[in-house]
């Protein structure tokens, strides 16, 4: 009795927070879910997609009883085993990522509420009524004002604290429960990101309800080096937008160049189309060391920790503009502006300035004062050749390179006057700077690399924010039936094996009429490639969320619009209620929306939480070779596992023997392998025969193109009946199927996992 009372009281509190009295939709089964509320869904996923751990370390070093050796089935002093320790590590990574976005969201919300007031209406334009699919689905709240977003972010904060608590020594003893918690953190991350980006769109008047946003300049050569240059690095636009305002108010807008590295660059171009994007994180150190930036302004997240040292070496002035990274600098927030400028110009001091208006004024004045005295030129080939001659070919640079390149060979070729190898290496460089750190002769390797760096200027489409409801109405049916073969979302950082990989992937799938969606550093890297006609993918393909479109949603926090689009398909197209109804949405996405994420160059822990959030929502993710270093994949074993689903029309559980999607988190060693996995992971049990034939056509043709002339080894698993076979390969596939002893099987009318595991969700909930 007491328990019922308590539950009721808790529910009452939730209903109050989500304004349950406003009846826009019935409230689902899990409004504002706690950790255990979606555990059954997670366990169902983990039953098929089992965690696969690759420990970096044999030990646990987390407490004073350690270090504990966890090899050969040993348990640590607290009782933990190696699998659970890995799972704990993954949860910590997801929490770092999730809290970075949540904290960004909380900060920007506070700034914008101060500017516009708590009652500022959320209006995302004529074509976006379903403004917050993640918040509506997870919390059950329809946010109408900036103030409503506070409820969402406070919920995220509370859950993060619970999750972090579980990583304390002792306590959780199951890797599966840790995975359930990681999935919870990933889901929260998408809520936090959505809060941030909605607030930014509303508060900064970013583009929304429009597909073809402006094309903006990309690349270091797009910056006018004759002007003072301010470079923003990080993620949070709280400062860069104020600098834009300051320049406009003081008639300096065309006298100072604004540019950025990483997501702040994307944010700033959503605010000012005059700002330039230098490039992704992997070009950060390279650009800083070029010395082109007169003033560097850092905010938060993906910024180097040695920024003051690097700025000093490059002769740039540094302002740390947010409290998350103050680098031990003197806090000049309360200091007189002219005094700060004087010290920065004359004494070359760096400062933390946490008042954006003051930081903007100082940055502008310092940039204008020091720019005329600074040399901003690339190294000449002759200078590079002279420097390279000092290389002794000791090989240390190759040994420390995380991308395993033979950098020394490139340098030694420069010494001979051959710049081709260094040009090639530059395209493979992830920009960590370890090579230079290790060089016993202190060669300025990044400086030498300048001769290999492309001096081209490219174009990137400014981030467009949410996918429009009208677009979802158009593509909902073709996506779920399979006639649009899939949605391919390329997200995350730039720790790629080769910066050109992603543009080639985008080009391949846009040409094949998949919908390609991009965000963050990936969206920048994709723009740094031109086809034979000199066009980037942004110039070559339209920005619509439709077959053959290439959509840049924006910065990292705009990833929430990609998960949001999947939810919108379930809600707008399939008319399934989403309010506090996460399990139903995720089940729909897993079984019927042919979407796949590609985190080809994950570096930041945020990539781990973003990907894990997609996984809980039923979207499989492909990782590049570096991205798997977060130590956990979710893999099935297609030949051994059961592939049972409920046929909701017949109300029967059926064994489909069809591994779709085959994995939930998978690593590909090469771009070629990714080209083949993408179409396969877009296959869903819901595909119509026509849709399946289209998907298999791409799977087969890409397999033949990238893997040699044969048919895929597992093709028989994906052919249900003869009409599924693509016309062009009919004869060849029929012969193959006969050889494999293939038997036709009935497609499932309405596939769902609901009804196949213990859940509060009734089967009727998924029938629309």
């Amino acid at each position: 009795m007491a328990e019922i009372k308590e539950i009721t009281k808790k529910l009452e509190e939730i209903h109050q927070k989500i304004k349950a009295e406003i009846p826009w939709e019935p409230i689902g089964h899990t409004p504002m879910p706690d950790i255990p509320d979606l555990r059954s869904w997670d366990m169902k996923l983990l039953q098929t997609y089992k965690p696969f751990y690759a420990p970096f370390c044999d030990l646990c070093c987390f407490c004073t009883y350690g270090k504990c050796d966890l090899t050969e089935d040993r348990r640590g002093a607290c009782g933990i085993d190696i699998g659970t320790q890995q799972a704990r590590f993954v949860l910590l990574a997801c929490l770092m990522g999730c809290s970075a976005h949540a904290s960004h969201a909380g900060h920007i919300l506070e700034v914008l509420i101060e500017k516009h007031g708590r009652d500022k209406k959320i209006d995302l334009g004529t074509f976006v009524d379903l403004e917050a699919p993640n918040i509506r689905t997870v919390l059950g709240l329809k946010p109408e004002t900036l103030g409503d977003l506070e409820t969402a972010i406070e919920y995220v904060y509370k859950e993060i604290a619970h999750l972090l608590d579980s990583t304390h020594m002792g306590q959780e003893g199951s890797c599966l429960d840790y995975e359930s918690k990681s999935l919870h953190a990933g889901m929260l991350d998408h809520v936090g990101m959505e809060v941030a980006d909605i607030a930014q769109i509303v508060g900064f008047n970013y583009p929304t309800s429009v597909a073809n946003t402006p094309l903006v300049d990309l690349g270091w050569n797009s910056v006018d080096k004759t002007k003072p240059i301010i470079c923003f690095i990080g993620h949070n636009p709280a400062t860069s937008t104020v600098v834009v305002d300051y320049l406009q108010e003081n008639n300096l807008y065309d006298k100072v160049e604004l540019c950025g590295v990483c997501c702040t660059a994307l944010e700033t171009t959503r605010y000012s189309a005059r700002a330039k994007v230098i490039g992704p994180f992997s070009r950060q150190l390279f650009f800083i060391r070029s010395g082109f930036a007169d003033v560097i302004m850092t905010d938060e997240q993906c910024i180097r920790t040695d920024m003051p040292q690097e700025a000093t070496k490059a002769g740039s002035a540094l302002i740390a503009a947010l409290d998350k990274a103050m680098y031990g600098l003197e806090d000049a927030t309360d200091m007189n502006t002219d005094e700060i400028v004087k010290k920065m110009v004359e004494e070359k001091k760096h400062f933390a300035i946490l008042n954006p208006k003051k930081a903007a004024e100082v940055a502008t004045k310092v940039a204008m004062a020091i720019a005329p005295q600074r040399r901003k030129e690339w190294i000449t080939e002759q200078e590079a050749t002279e420097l390279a001659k000092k290389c002794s070919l000791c090989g240390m640079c190759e040994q420390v390179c995380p991308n395993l390149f033979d950098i020394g060979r490139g340098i030694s070729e420069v010494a001979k006057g051959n710049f081709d190898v260094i040009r090639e290496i530059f395209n493979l460089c992830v920009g960590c700077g370890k090579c230079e750190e290790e060089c016993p002769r202190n060669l300025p390797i990044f400086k030498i690399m300048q001769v290999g760096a492309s001096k081209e200027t490219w174009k990137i489409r400014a981030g467009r924010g949410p996918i429009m409801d009208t677009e979802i109405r158009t593509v909902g049916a073709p996506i779920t039936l399979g006639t649009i073969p899939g949605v391919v979302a390329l997200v995350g950082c730039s720790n790629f094996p080769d910066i050109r990989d992603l543009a080639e992937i985008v080009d391949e799938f846009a040409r094949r009429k998949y919908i390609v969606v991009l965000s963050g550093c990936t969206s920048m890297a994709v723009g740094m490639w031109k086809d034979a006609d000199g066009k980037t993918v942004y110039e070559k393909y339209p920005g619509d969320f439709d077959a053959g479109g290439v959509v840049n949603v924006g910065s990292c926090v705009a990833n929430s619009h990609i998960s949001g689009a999947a939810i919108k398909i379930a809600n707008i197209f399939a008319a399934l209620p989403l309010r506090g109804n996460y399990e139903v949405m995720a089940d729909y996405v897993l079984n019927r929306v042919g979407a796949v994420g590609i985190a080809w160059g994950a570096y930041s822990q945020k990539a781990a939480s973003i990907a894990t959030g997609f996984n809980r929502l039923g979207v499989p993710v492909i990782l590049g070779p570096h991205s798997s270093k977060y130590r956990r994949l979710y893999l099935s074993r297609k030949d051994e596992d059961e592939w049972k689903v409920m046929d909701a029309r017949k109300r029967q559980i059926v064994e489909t023997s069809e591994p779709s999607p085959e994995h939930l988190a998978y690593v590909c060693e090469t771009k070629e392998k990714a080209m083949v996995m993408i179409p396969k992971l877009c296959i869903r049990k819901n595909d119509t025969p026509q849709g399946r034939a289209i998907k298999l056509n791409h799977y087969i043709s890409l397999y033949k193109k990238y893997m040699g002339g044969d048919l895929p080894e597992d093709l028989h698993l994906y052919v249900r009946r003869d009409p599924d076979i693509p016309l062009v390969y009919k004869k060849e596939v029929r012969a193959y199927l006969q050889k494999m002893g293939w038997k036709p099987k009935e497609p499932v009318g309405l596939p769902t996992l609901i009804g196949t595991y213990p859940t509060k969700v009734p089967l009727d909930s998924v029938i629309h």
Partner: protein
Amino acid sequence: MSQLAPSLPFHRVNILTGTRTARQVEDPAEYAKQITKAQRPLLVLGPRLFQLSLGGKLVLEYALDIAKAKNIPICATDSIKSKMVELGTKPDSIYDAVEIANALKDPDWKGVRKEGNHDLVMFLGIRTDLGEQSLSVLKHFAPHLKTMTLCKYYYPHADFSLPNIRKDEQWKNFLENLIDHLKKGG
């Protein structure tokens, strides 16, 4: 089996942080002995074999000679299947490194020839950081088998590894001698 003083791996992203590290083997006869002793060895071949050659001969060809010498089944990635077929050998199974590691973890898995799980798994041609991760999976979660690497770098998470070999000639000699020993019966 393991040794206490570990060598440093060539690529420092693979530095071991732990207690159990691979036994470094320089003598091809010892490798041949371990392979011959195994009941159901398996050779896992990765996509880098496409690019690597020694003295004008693809490293893939050395791998196929090793397999032929002892009728060792081959698990290859999709990407090198067509080259293998061109060289006259069809792989026994097609898996990526993580997929084969995932199957090998299961002691009840029937193996690529359905004769039972393997007791010695040899790796060649996978990029070192990804290969090291697969070896770590097997080190921790597949106590029922041993792992061996044939690449020219030291892999701490394997059971048996070659040392870091600076000169390709030395690696070529090792592989040729290994093939000879295997042909002679190990």
